[in-house]
């Protein structure tokens, strides 16, 4: 064979090998010690991998990318700021856990009706040191509430109660009504009935009592808490429950339409079905719900109704903030 022929064959083979092998080699060595997580819409697979192991105190290097649309990444029950996971790009992130346990990571940018199903877990273990956090049962469990039962408000105000007007009656109000325990355990309608039957408040009319209810509810939150609740609501709830809480979010119709069909389990039996999201602006419904009940619904979720379970995602503080914000659809001047 001529030398020129030899050389040209070598050049062709070298060219082919370089373009095929160099990327693969770089990919292999570059990926050592790094977990690469691909995000897809839940319908097409969600996160993969969706279960990761890590060790307490050992930095976990993550590379996040999306294979379809914009996603986000955050760790539940933590104050970690969410990072965006744009399609076709790599987002690098290093996490260090100081307590063992099972952490949930979840998508933070709405990516369709099943956005909230896009979750995964990080199993963080330690070498003997530190025990998992003791878990205390949530309030709705200790109060033994049936969070799936209807909770109509037996009474509703004729006009919008005002916390500011209610504040004028503080002198008359027995202090037991202003405790956090009271606020969390009772619905506004129950609180109204308690106030109505309280001899200390006999002189007040119904509207004034409702104003006091508004005041009690306001005194259990702060402007910062409400602002945080508002933001969390916009990011996590508004897509279904509507930006104004009226249950008419952009996915509401799809949920309602999924209805019947969504209720069949694998055996064909009917279970809970997807339904239209709750309208938080309806006093007949909302004023009959206690914060503990709403907490239960939020952290446990709607079990097949389309309502996600947020327990592994939100800290208690965040959930209470969202709940406080939900009542603000009924009470004015709460943020004042």
């Amino acid at each position, binding site marked *: 064979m001529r030398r020129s022929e030899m050389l040209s064959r070598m050049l062709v083979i070298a060219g082919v090998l370089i373009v095929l092998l160099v990327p693969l080699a770089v990919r292999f060595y570059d990926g050592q010690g790094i977990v690469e997580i691909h995000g897809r819409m839940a319908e097409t697979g969600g996160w993969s991998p969706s279960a990761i192991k890590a060790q307490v105190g050992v930095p976990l290097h993550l590379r996040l990318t999306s294979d379809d*649309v*914009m996603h986000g990444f955050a760790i539940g029950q933590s104050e970690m700021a969410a990072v965006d996971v744009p*399609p076709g790009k790599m987002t690098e992130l290093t996490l260090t856990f100081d307590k063992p346990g099972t952490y949930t990571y979840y998508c933070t940018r709405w990516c*369709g*009706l099943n956005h909230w199903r896009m979750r995964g877990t990080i199993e963080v273990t330690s070498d003997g040191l530190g025990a998992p956090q003791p878990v205390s049962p949530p309030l709705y469990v200790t109060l033994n509430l049936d969070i799936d039962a209807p909770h109509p408000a037996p009474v509703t105000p004729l006009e919008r109660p005002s916390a500011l007007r209610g504040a004028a009656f503080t002198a008359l109000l027995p202090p037991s009504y202003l405790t956090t325990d009271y606020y969390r355990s009772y619905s506004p309608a129950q609180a109204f009935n308690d106030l109505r039957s309280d001899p200390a408040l006999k002189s007040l009319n119904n509207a004034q009592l409702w104003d006091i209810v508004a005041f009690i509810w306001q005194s259990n939150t702060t402007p910062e808490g409400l602002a945080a609740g508002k933001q969390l609501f916009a*990011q996590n709830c508004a897509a279904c429950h509507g930006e104004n809480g009226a249950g008419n979010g952009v996915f509401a119709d799809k949920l309602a339409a999924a209805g019947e069909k969504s209720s069949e389990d694998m055996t064909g039996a009917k279970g809970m079905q997807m339904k239209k999201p709750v309208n938080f602006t309806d006093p007949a419904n909302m004023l009959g719900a206690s914060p503990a009940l709403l907490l239960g619904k939020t952290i446990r979720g709607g079990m097949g109704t389309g309502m996600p379970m947020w327990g592994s995602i939100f800290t208690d503080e965040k959930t209470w903030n969202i709940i406080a914000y939900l009542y603000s659809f009924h009470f004015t001047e709460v943020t004042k």
Partner: protein
Amino acid sequence: MSRKQWFLIIFAGLAGAVIAFAPLPVRVTPPAQRTLRVEANQFAYSPAVLAVNPGDTVTIELVSTDVVHGLYVDGYGVSVTADPGQTTRLTFTADRSGSFRFRCNVTCGALHTFMIGKIQVGSNILLWRALGLTILASLVAIILFPRPAKAQAA
């Protein structure tokens, strides 16, 4: 070429220049505030064609109904992004006339690059000019070479 043909060519050139560049009397409408709600889903805007008058202050309310979408207005270079449940607003003054495409600028799936709508600011004057030039070009060519007398050498 005959003198007649030369005249025709010069005439066509002038007519073409007029069609292409002549300033037109602009129908002045008092500028207004306009709020347009645009829903975005994979891979379309609804409504996909918007019409405003030159000088209007336009606010586009972008409502995304499935995944995160954006809206970038060609020619104006302004954009906005919306998540489902979080309506966003883009306000700009429609100070350039014509037809502009707007497109998604947050990758939103397979047909992302083809997720396109149109905003018409006043009339689409460039299209009318182009249509005029096209008809002029074809008319002039027909008149200029009316009846080829004899087969030319191939």
